[in-house]
């Protein structure tokens, strides 16, 4: 057997600060897709109680300590930061997505304005408040976007698109900074 070396999605990537915005790579973590079987909602809810989590409403995410359950589609959520509890498998299709997604956080008051250049959804706190999680495109990439703080959002995309995401976002920040400089 060849020896394979596990690498983080953002191996060696340092955070970038421009125009008062901090773009930072997020650590890889366990990610499991939980797709409810028809009629499986109650059974899944019982199984998820052991994590202290309820199944999230559409466009929401819930957390208990470092463990999150993020809505990602109809009757589907991503369990992030923990292994799925025993007893869940009978009520939902549970599949390991760990290593399949890469995330970044964007922090700063102008984050929504910067992301507006790539994401056709209003991400200002008024319409994208605490606890919000949506599926939306980042340019051509399908993403999961979460609000994780008053001035912080996370963007998760397929890991194969990590470098493209980083490129697109750093380009936006560069232009955003240039615009701010000109405006004085």
């Amino acid at each position, binding site marked *: 057997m060849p020896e394979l070396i596990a690498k983080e999605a953002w191996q060696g990537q340092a955070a970038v600060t421009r125009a008062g915005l901090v773009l930072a790579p997020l650590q890889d973590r366990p990610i499991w897709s939980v797709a409810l079987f028809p009629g499986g909602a109650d059974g899944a809810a019982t199984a998820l109680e052991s994590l202290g989590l309820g199944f999230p409403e*559409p*466009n929401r995410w819930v957390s208990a300590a470092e463990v999150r359950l993020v809505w990602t*589609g*109809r009757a589907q959520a991503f369990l992030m930061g923990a292994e799925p509890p025993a007893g869940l498998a009978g009520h939902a299709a549970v599949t390991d997505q760990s290593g399949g997604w890469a995330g970044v956080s964007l922090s700063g008051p102008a984050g929504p304005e910067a992301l507006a250049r790539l994401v*056709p*959804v209003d991400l200002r706190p008024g319409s994208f408040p605490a606890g919000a999680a*949506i*599926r*939306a*495109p980042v340019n051509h990439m*399908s993403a999961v976007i979460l609000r994780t703080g008053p001035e912080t959002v996370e963007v998760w995309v397929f890991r194969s698109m990590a470098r493209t995401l980083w490129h697109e976002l750093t380009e936006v920040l560069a232009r955003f900074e240039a615009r701010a400089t000109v405006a004085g």
Partner: protein
Amino acid sequence: MRLTCPLCGDRDRREFHYYGSDAYLDRPAEGAAPAAWDDYLHNRDNPAGLTKDLWYHEQGCAQWLVVTRNTVTHEVSAVELVAGRAGA
């Protein structure tokens, strides 16, 4: 153009993929007459007024939607999930 996805809310047209008439939801049963298959596959009305189309929210929740719109006024009057329909 914007569509209000029943799950995701008001979204830009670029998130959606157009498929065609909602007639594609009513697939003839096995052994149906050739005329039924002809209708299912080929024969479409082109109404001036209300029409129902299938759209896919590919950049959002990945759900198939039935969109009711008016080809005269461009008004979108309903967007419904295909999932959960009777027989779906």
